[in-house]
């Protein structure tokens, strides 16, 4: 179609009125893009129709625009305005606080359980100490009972001038029951690999009989050793012997020697 044919077809008038079907609308639009005179024709028809409509328009109040502006601004503020949803915020805050509270309580509970465990351990240790102390006390009482009783006689074994002049040992001896307690407090500590051995002695002829070693086996209480089944001795001697003790006393290592005759 030429520009003139489109212009005289009557389609442009219908196009401006919006009364053309889609296919013919497209046809007119193609012609507008192609021919400037068609576009000018469209503009003229449009201007005529606008003038006609304006001619029958009653006077327009300025309030109409005010109302339109208010409406579009209201919609806009509703759309873009970030309305704060306090209910949701409060809800989330409460949930977070609640979780934090639970974690805090779990932590507290753990701490308390730890404390209980520590306390329990401490209790066990204290109980052991009490038991030890009680048995120590019992042993000390036993020793004290022995020392105070009339069945036991007390002897001091003086130090051998040649070997250990400062040394001494105390013997508490029950002749009837043949029990002796030896207090080693006056003896120097036995060197490594050596041990003190106690001997009961008959003087004439000189017969030493081993009573036992001052070892952990015989200990009763710090430094006090108990020996039983001792043959009637006239004296007690203590020598330093190699570990395990000896058959006969090593006399050049005789630390103390004392008579126990009544």
């Amino acid at each position, binding site marked *: 179609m030429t520009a003139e044919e489109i212009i005289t077809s009557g389609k442009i008038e219908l196009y401006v009125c919006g009364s053309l079907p889609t296919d013919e609308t497209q046809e007119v639009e193609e012609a507008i893009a192609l021919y400037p005179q068609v576009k000018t024709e469209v503009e003229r028809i449009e201007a005529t129709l606008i003038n006609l*409509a304006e*001619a029958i328009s009653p006077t327009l109040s300025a309030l109409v625009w005010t109302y339109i*502006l208010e409406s579009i601004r209201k919609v806009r503020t509703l759309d873009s305005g970030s309305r704060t949803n306090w209910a949701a915020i409060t809800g989330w805050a409460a949930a977070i606080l609640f979780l934090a509270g639970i974690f805090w309580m779990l932590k507290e509970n753990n701490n308390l359980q730890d404390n209980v465990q520590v306390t329990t351990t401490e209790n066990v240790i204290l109980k052991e100490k009490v038991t030890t102390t009680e048995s120590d006390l019992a042993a000390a009482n036993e020793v004290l009972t022995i020392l105070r009783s009339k069945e036991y006689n007390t002897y001091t074994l003086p130090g051998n001038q040649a070997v250990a002049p400062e040394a001494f040992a105390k013997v508490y001896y029950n002749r009837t029951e043949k029990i002796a307690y030896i207090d080693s407090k006056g003896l120097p500590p036995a060197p490594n690999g050596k041990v003190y051995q106690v001997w009961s002695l008959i003087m004439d002829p000189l017969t030493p009989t081993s009573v036992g070693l001052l070892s952990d086996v015989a200990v009763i209480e710090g430094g006090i050793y108990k020996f039983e089944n001792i043959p009637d001795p006239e004296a007690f001697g203590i020598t330093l012997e190699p570990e395990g003790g000896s058959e006969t006393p090593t006399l050049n290592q005789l630390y103390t020697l004392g008579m126990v005759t009544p």
Partner: protein
Amino acid sequence: MEQPNSLILEMQSGNEKAFFRIYTLYSEALFGIIYSIVLDEGVAEEVLQDSFIKIWDNRISYNIEKGRFFTWILNIARNSAIDKTRSKDFKNSKKNLSTSNFVDILAGSDNLNQKTNAIGIKRFVDALKPACIKIIDLLYFKGFTQVDASKELKIPLGTLKTRNRNCINDLRTMVLG
């Protein structure tokens, strides 16, 4: 009249000032169209407000490459006005207004628009052939499709097109000089 494409683009990007200038350019014409349909100034103002709010809300859907902007807003205004006449409260308050057209409005009232050329148009449309008045009323003011209009007027499509063109041509010579 050349279409103000740069204004339309500015409005489409959300510029209220551009929208106001477009309102200034087209509001009277749309008001005339709406008034010719609802025939009540108060109701026509209401419909005009709604129409421009719709234009703003849907401004993105218009494409300057396709179709005339005036035709687009003309459709919005006509449809809003026709919807209004179909609403219950409008039907209850109004009686029969089917007989009125733009010429009746022009003839029946002297205190319409004070535009100088309104007088000229009035004089001219008085001389418009009754067939022209009917065609322009249906196609332009009432928004009939060409098929519906040819059925309504009982004339073939081709005749409708030619007659409509001649009528608008007559009008145009008078209006634009």
